[in-house]
Structures are given as C-alpha cells and as structure tokens.
C-alpha cells in the first residue's frame, strides 16, 4: 500500500514538473492553447462535480463562466491594486453564491426540468450582460485589464500560463480531496439513489445545493482566468453552445471522474482545433463525432478504460 502511494506521488510530481517547464519548449500559440485547455478542464471539473457525481443535469454553465469573467474584469478595472488571485477568489465566490441561490429552487426539480431551468439560467445571464450595457459594455464588449500581483504584470501568454496552471492544479487537488471525502461520498450516494441516500441520513437539500455552489465556484474561477486570457469579453462568448460543449466534455471524458473531466477537455478542444480549418464541415464532423462517442463509449473514455481493465483482471 505504501509503495503504490509513493509511486503515485512521484508520478504526480513528475507530471507537474513537465507541465511547468513546457512553456520553454513550446511556441506562443501552443502556450495559449494549453492555457485555454486548463481553463476548460476547470469548468469540466466543476460541471462533473455537479453532473457526474450528483447526477443533476446542468445546461447553463456558460452563465457561471460569464459571471466569473465579468466580475473579474470589472473588479480588476475598478480596483487594480487587488492581486489577481484575490480577484479570482472573489469571482468564484460570487459565482458560487449565485449557484447556491439557484440550487435552492432547483433542488425540487428532477431530470429534464433541472436541464430546462439551468438552460434558462444561462440565457438569462447572457441577456442581463447584454442589456446592462452601462456596466458591461453590452454588445460592444469589455476590454479586460491585465492581471497583476502588485507590480508584477501578467502581460504575456507565457506569464499567464504560470497563473492559470497553478490555479488549475490546486483546484484539481482540492476537487480530489472533496471527492474522496465525506462530501464526495454523499454526492455519489445522491446520484445512485436519492431515496437510499436519504435513508442513510444524507440531507438531500443540503448536498444538492452544496453541489451547485461548488460547481459554480469552480466555473466562476475558470471564468476569471478566461477573462485574463482572452482579454476581451462580450455576451456572444457565453452561449448555449458553450454550455453544451462543457457537457460534451464530461460525457466524452467520463462522468464522475476527475481524470475524465481533464481528458474530455483535451479531446474536445483538440477536436475543435483540428476541425477549425475545415470551415463548412466543422459543425457536421463535430456532431457526428459526438454521436459516435455516445454510441460506443457511453461512459466516456475513462469508463471504457475501466471496462477494459475489468475484462482483463
């Protein structure tokens, strides 16, 4: 037991080191892409905590991404002395609180109804951003000031990488902790059977709203990083399609799995990159691929790997 634990630690550390020295070997565009991937992985993680672990369908996470992004942009613009990690924390917290408030009425709903309610939420957020143009710039958009900690300015994709990756890694580790702890097990109990979970004393309402809040927190922080990376926000960035993209990530990667969240983000972003040059065919191929994934790997890539492992053991 101790041996495998030690190997596991070494594995993680090695992976982390490779990740941190990568920017010295890659071109600027690759660094940008990796950063975007980390951000999407973070959203994917948050969404998986809600959908994969507690089984509630959420189709409006682009809304939380938007909230995190705009809060970060506005706070940085008006309080530029605040170090950006604090701003990100603030963005995540506000997003989390809204998620909590959203979770309260939603927890009475089931299945499709949660999907519809969250879908509506995403649209409402986008619309508010659009209409409240005196604050957000509406249609014309909002230019995001550069992230800074004191006098250190993250004014290049290279520097931003060293903000985005550490944040993503830390939050991934936190998620792992959460999932392996009491809360995580309560989540899984919720997913498997709400009735059974209640019977063994899991407070349904409490854990459902916690799930929403945590998920929203993660997506809010990702939104802040997104704002710093893209440097320009407009309501067109946060559409229903983006919310569906996030769902696609965890379906492809594997629901209820942290590794699955990351794999899903990698594959989806990778596919979009490869297909971007195909113009007319992009949407078609993307849709077809999703269908194929659903048919042959309904439990995602991680699910498929576990199945293979099961068969061979």
């Amino acid at each position, binding site marked *: 037991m101790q041996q495998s634990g030690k190997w596991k630690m070494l594995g993680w550390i090695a*992976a982390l080191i490779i990740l941190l020295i*990568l920017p010295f070997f890659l*071109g600027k565009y690759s660094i940008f892409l*990796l950063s*975007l991937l980390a951000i999407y992985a973070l959203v994917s993680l948050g969404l998986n905590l809600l959908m994969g672990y507690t089984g509630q369908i959420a189709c409006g996470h682009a809304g939380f991404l938007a909230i995190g992004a705009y809060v970060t942009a506005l706070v940085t613009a008006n309080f530029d002395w605040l170090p950006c990690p604090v701003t990100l924390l603030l963005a995540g917290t506000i997003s989390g609180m809204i998620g909590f408030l959203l979770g309260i009425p939603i927890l009475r709903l089931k299945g499709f109804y949660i999907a519809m309610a969250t879908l509506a939420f995403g649209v409402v957020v986008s619309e508010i951003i659009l209409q409240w143009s005196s604050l957000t710039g509406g249609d*014309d958009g909002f*230019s995001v000031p550069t992230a800074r900690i004191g006098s250190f300015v993250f004014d290049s994709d290279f520097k931003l990488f060293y903000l985005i990756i550490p944040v993503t890694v830390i939050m991934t580790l936190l998620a792992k902790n959460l999932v392996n702890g009491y809360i995580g097990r309560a989540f899984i109990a919720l997913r498997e059977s709400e009735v059974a979970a209640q019977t063994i004393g899991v407070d349904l309402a409490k854990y459902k709203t916690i799930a929403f809040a945590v998920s929203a927190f993660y997506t809010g922080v990702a939104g802040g990083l997104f704002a710093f990376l893209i440097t*320009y926000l407009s309501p*067109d*960035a946060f559409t229903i399609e983006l919310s569906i993209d996030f769902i696609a990530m965890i379906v492809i990667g594997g629901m209820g799995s942290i590794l699955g969240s990351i794999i899903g983000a990698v594959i989806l972003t990778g596919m979009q990159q490869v297909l971007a040059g195909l113009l007319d065919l992009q949407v078609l191929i993307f849709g077809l691929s999703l269908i194929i994934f659903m048919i042959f790997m309904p439990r995602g890539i991680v699910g498929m790997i576990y199945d293979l492992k099961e068969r061979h053991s």
Partner: protein
Amino acid sequence: MQKFKYLSTFGLIVLIALFFAVAVNDVNAEVGVTDNSILVGCSNSFSGPLVYPGTQLVNNGLEAYIGYINAQGGVNGRKILTQYYDDGYKPQNAVGNTKRLVEQDKVFAILASQGTGPVMATVKYLTQNKVPLLFPFQGVPLSGQKTIFTSFTPYPNQSELVVTWLVKIKGFKRIGMLYQDDKYGYTFRDPAKKTLAKYGLKLIAAESYKRGAKDLSAQVAKLRKANLDACLLVATPPPGATFLKEAHKQGWKNTKIISSGPLTDEKYINLSGGVGEGVWGLSLWPDPVHSQDPAVIEYRKIVDKYGKDRDKTPNRYSLYGYFYAKLFVEGLKRAGKNVTRESYIAALESIKDWENGMVPPVSFSGSDHLTQNSGFMVEVQRSVFRPISGWLTLKEGTLTPLKQ
C-alpha cells in the same frame, strides 16, 4: 488500480506535451512572405448568426478576386495564399484563431475579419504584435493605430451625413427616431442629436426598444402622433421590418422613414413584405445586382468565374470582400517586390484618389486610415433601393458632393 491511475495521468500529460510539440509547427520563417507567395487570412463567421455575410465575404468576395489575380500570375511574381478559420461570431474563438494565424500559420496580415465582438477582441493583440489588421467588416470607429486600416463609413459619420441631408437638402424640421436601446442604437442616436443641435433643432420624438423586442405598436403610435417630417429607423432587420409592418397597419403615411446603416439592404425589404416602398436610406455601395457601372459588372463576372460559394447571387457582402481584396492588392502592387509589413503600410498610405469605379476615389495618409467616409441616399422603388442623390460626404460639417 492505483498504479494504473498515476500512470495514465502521467502518460496523459506526456501525450499532451508531445501533441503540442509535434502537431503544432513553430518553425521560424519570414512572416508570411516567400519569393513566390504571400499569406493572408482571417477569422470569420462560417457558422453562427453571421454565416451568410461571412461566407459570402470570404468565398465569393476575397477568394473570387484573389483567384482572379492569381490566375494572372499574382502580384510582383507572388501568388496570394489564404487561410481562414471559423469563429462562429464568438470573440474567444476569434482570439484563438487569430493567434493561430499569426503564430502558427505566420500570416502577413489579417484581412477582412468580421463582427464588432470578434474583431475588437483581437485588436489589442494585433496592435501589440504589429500585425496589420486590414479592413475588418464592422462599424465602430477605430483610429489612431498605425497597423489598422478601417473600411466603410463609421456609424456616427453615417448618422451625421443622413441628418445633415434631411435638414439642409430636404428642409425637414421635425425629425424623430426609433432606436435599439443599446450601444448600437446610441452610436446613431447621439451623433444625430448633435447634428440637429447644430441647426437649432432637436429630436422631436425618440422611442426605443430592447434588442429582441417583437411588438413595436406602442412606439409606432407615439412616433406617429408626433407629426414628424422624417423618422430615423435605427434597428436590425427583424425589428426594422416589424416597425414598417406596424406603421403600415396603423395607416401612418405622412412621414418619411429613413433606414440606417446595415439596415439599408435587400434582405430588409423582403422581410417587410412589400411595405417598404418609399423608405429612404443611406447606401454605401452601388447596387450589386442592378448597377451597370463597368466595375460592378466586372465584379459580377469575376464572382461568377472564381467565386467559391454555391450561392453566387450578387450581394453587398461579396462586393465588400471583392472590393477590399482589390484594395489590398493595390497596396501590394505599390509596395513592390521587397514587401515588409512596414513597407506595405507605407504603400497603402501613399494611395491618393484611387479610382475604383465603385465608391468615391480612395485616399489614405499617415493620419487617415479610413477607406470610405461617404454614402448616397436611396429610396425603395418597386422593391429595390434606387439612388435619389449623388455620392456625398461631410467636409467640416458641410455636405459636399463627390464624384465616383
């Protein structure tokens, strides 16, 4: 199970690293220019809400004219190569695509990207990296940047032009407006108010609607009661059409309706189901379908032969792409064989009174990077916008005719 898990995470990271190192080629080459080629491109809408303007602009506009030029042997011995990516009108995709074009594909310049959001999102990055941004299809004024050249008459200028014409040429005094209640609407409304104030007038009635509104009957009623000479319509095609239909329904006849900017297009007439007769507007282009100007006839011929989109109906978007490809090539010709980004910008700035047969002669300078600052008034007659004035511009607030 444990070992497998850490192995897979480790392997995953290595895989990602390999993918980026191998698949993404970052060889240092001259920026977009070789002895026999020059590479340009843009991120544009090949899907999403602006798919029609985007595909027409690129496939039947840029690609048509560039195909024609390449068939003649290119410019100064170089063929023009192109690379496009789809952003679906999403700013974050536009940023990603543009970075890819600049850093991975190494384009010489970004040519004719589209949409306020997607374009504005890339401005900071492009100016910081000194990559020329040429003629993006959007109406927000963008000036003071050495590497940016803008295209059509910006919206505030359009508003000023129209209002001045209504007051000075038509002698109208009672002018009102329906506008979309957001930045787009204000971009037309505020210059209109300022221009009216110059002549001691004000907006007699101004009604607004929220983007996406479907019922404009209240606004129409109020504007009609105000007994206006003219009413400016600052809207996108769907509410614009709704407004016209409602005005027709309420029997509102004695006020001239003026459409603004991008509203002045065939699509808008068709949407309103025939009640657009008599509506005025400001046009920035000759009629792509009916105009018999030699340059426009040539445009139709070239699109027909070299255009890459199946739908070859002449329209203002492919015309835009065609015209600005032509302007781009003009700059290339003047820059000569030894072209760099700086020498290209200087070449464009040297253009004075470039006759093109479509819009008034184009001039640039060190301080003026705006291609077009003019328009002409049109009226819907038998479902088509027909000219009712010559080309006009404003020189220090005075309407000045221009020759084409």
